[in-house]
């Protein structure tokens, strides 16, 4: 119970810190967004030959950003926290002229779709590959796979994405070059729509699979070899257990366990990666909005995205932590390294 309470507390605290960081970056940084806008307005006024009127400028800033620079910092901080926590109010997106929460909320399922499938497929293939490599340890297959894994591990996912997009989409036209569904499809439970979704998501998912590909397989291989050399495996064989049981209940479980938390953290990595990925594939998920927000200096949206990704990561790590105790009996005794 201790562990759970501690982890829960830590997660909440982390989110609190993240929100605070966004506030600090947003409001208090020298040359931060607010100050930059103020300066811009001042120079605009000066350029027009007018005497800059600070109260007018602050008013303008307040209109554009929803933030009144005259509010004392601690009050502003309190209001910022309150709005986010109580009302899920991340402010108003400047570029889209809509509440940030709404923009992100509608984009979220697409990002989740791509990321979750990406990591599920990636992890499964990696683990199987790693286990097979370990089984044939020292063979040509093992050496070959090791080299392939290292090469794949060296390819940044966006490089993979670019190559896929260039050839599979642009050159050969096997996949769409952007978007997330057929433009002429109607949303709903119909095959054409679903087909479109799958067709559009295929390349982003394939590229997500590349994130951390190879590395996991090598870890799995190492873990398997370690377990296979353990004394309890020798005893299990002496006890006459079937190969199947040894493979699943002994090697499999004990080798996958250490990768479990890595999986959850990997999930967070894939979500983050969607910033670049969705941009390349023009796939309008949460990550895709990042670039627009950046170009348009849409700070409320940018901060919202950071908070959004943090929530996902924190929840992922928390789930990993809490469920780890269920699958590894040793986790509950003594404070082990969570990750």
């Amino acid at each position: 119970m201790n562990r759970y309470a501690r982890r829960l507390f830590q997660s909440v605290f982390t989110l609190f810190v993240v929100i605070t960081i966004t506030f600090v970056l947003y409001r208090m940084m020298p040359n931060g967004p607010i100050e930059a806008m103020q300066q811009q307005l001042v120079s605009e006024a000066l350029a027009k030959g007018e005497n800059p009127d600070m109260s007018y400028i602050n008013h303008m800033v307040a209109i554009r950003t929803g933030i009144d620079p005259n509010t004392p910092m601690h009050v502003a901080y309190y209001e910022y926290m309150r709005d986010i926590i109580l009302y899920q109010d991340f402010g108003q997106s400047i570029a889209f002229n809509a509440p940030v929460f709404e923009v992100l909320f509608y984009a979220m399922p697409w990002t989740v779709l791509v990321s979750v499938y990406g990591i599920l497929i990636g992890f499964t293939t990696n683990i199987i590959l790693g286990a097979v490599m370990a089984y044939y340890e020292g063979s040509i297959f093992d050496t070959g796979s090791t080299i392939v894994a290292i090469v794949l591990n060296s390819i940044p996912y966006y490089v993979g994405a670019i190559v896929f997009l260039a050839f599979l989409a642009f050159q050969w036209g096997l996949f769409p070059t952007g978007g997330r569904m057929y433009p002429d499809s109607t949303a709903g439970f119909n095959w054409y729509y679903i087909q479109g979704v799958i067709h559009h998501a295929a390349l982003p998912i394939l590229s997500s699979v590349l994130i951390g590909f190879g590395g996991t397989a090598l870890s799995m291989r190492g873990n398997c070899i370690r377990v296979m050399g353990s004394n309890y495996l020798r005893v299990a064989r002496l006890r006459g257990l079937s190969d199947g049981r040894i493979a699943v209940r002994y090697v499999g479980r004990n080798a996958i366990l250490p990768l479990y938390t890595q999986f959850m953290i990997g999930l967070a990595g894939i979500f983050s990666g969607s910033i670049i990925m969705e941009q390349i594939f023009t796939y309008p998920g949460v990550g895709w909005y990042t670039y627009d927000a950046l170009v348009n200096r849409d700070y409320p949206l940018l901060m919202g995205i950071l908070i959004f990704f943090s929530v996902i990561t924190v929840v992922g790590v928390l789930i990993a932590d809490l469920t780890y105790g269920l699958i590894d009996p040793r986790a509950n005794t003594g404070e082990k390294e969570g990750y």
Partner: protein
Amino acid sequence: MNETSIHSTRSSTSSETIFEVEDITVEFGMDRGTSRVVDNVSMEIERNEIIGIVGESGSGKSMFASTLLDAVEEPGQVTGTVTYYPEDGEPVDVLDLDEKALRTFRWEEVAMVDQGAMDSFNPTMDIETHFKETLIAHGSDVDGGMEHARELLTELYLDPDRVLGAYPHELSGGMQQRTLIALSLVLKPDVIVMDEPTGALDLLMQRSITGLIAQLHERYGITILFITHDLPLIADLADRIAVMYAFEFVELGPAYDVLKHAAHPYTRALLKAVPNTMTPLEEMAPIEGDSPDPVSVPQGCSYHPRCPLATSKCRETDPGFHDVDTARTAACFHWERSAAAVSYTLSGPNEH
């Protein structure tokens, strides 16, 4: 050469052989040469005896034990024959068993408890599942088997409910060791091979476990092969003692005789060098010299560089076994003179 076979050491006609080991050699290929960790060893193990195998670490005793279950791991190469004589039925050539037969043979006929008890259980599985999966794997009656397991645990001074429901890491070393002994007995095997089963434990726990082993031996009539570097540990446990030096046996015989009137100079030196509570302190002395390397065992008698009795004959010829009496044999040309050359006392004159 008055060489005789070690086979002639059967102490009485009434006993019958359960294991017959002939010319077993275990080799490992290494970069700097072939490492022969068991060197052409033969012996017979009798039904229902406790035989202690004593030797320094790295003398090949664990490897020898593994051959009885054909459990020498790659890249070890085993040659020779190991024949197992079941209570009823045809003799079994252990090294020739196919995978399926070997799977049945292990644990049903011969079980093994080795030194790494702390690492003998799957860390992510509770103890009960270990027992159950073993029973299921051998097609035994699970309910009856678990009942037997509970009895065994109770006899080993463990609380069955607590132990069965626990995960390995929740048990202390001594508890894991005892649980492993219970697990090895759950299929009622005829033979148990115990390789340093008390190695990492406290003295009190060691001694308690050897006591428990003796009790289990009596109750279930199991043949026990007890392997250790700690000679005193088996002094009152074993019926017979085999002493191993440099990858082969140098002396074999009834425990009492081997301890009281050791024939091989190495056994005598070992008895002198082992710290214990009864030997007069001034009688204890270390063995001079170092144990040989498995890649380059000395020519002739492997003990000759350290032996006070060594002659040119010892340096050139492997002594082979010499009968000391009907039940005992020693691999030494000069065993008759060993008592005079290496003296030892097991307990002080003013004892009890």
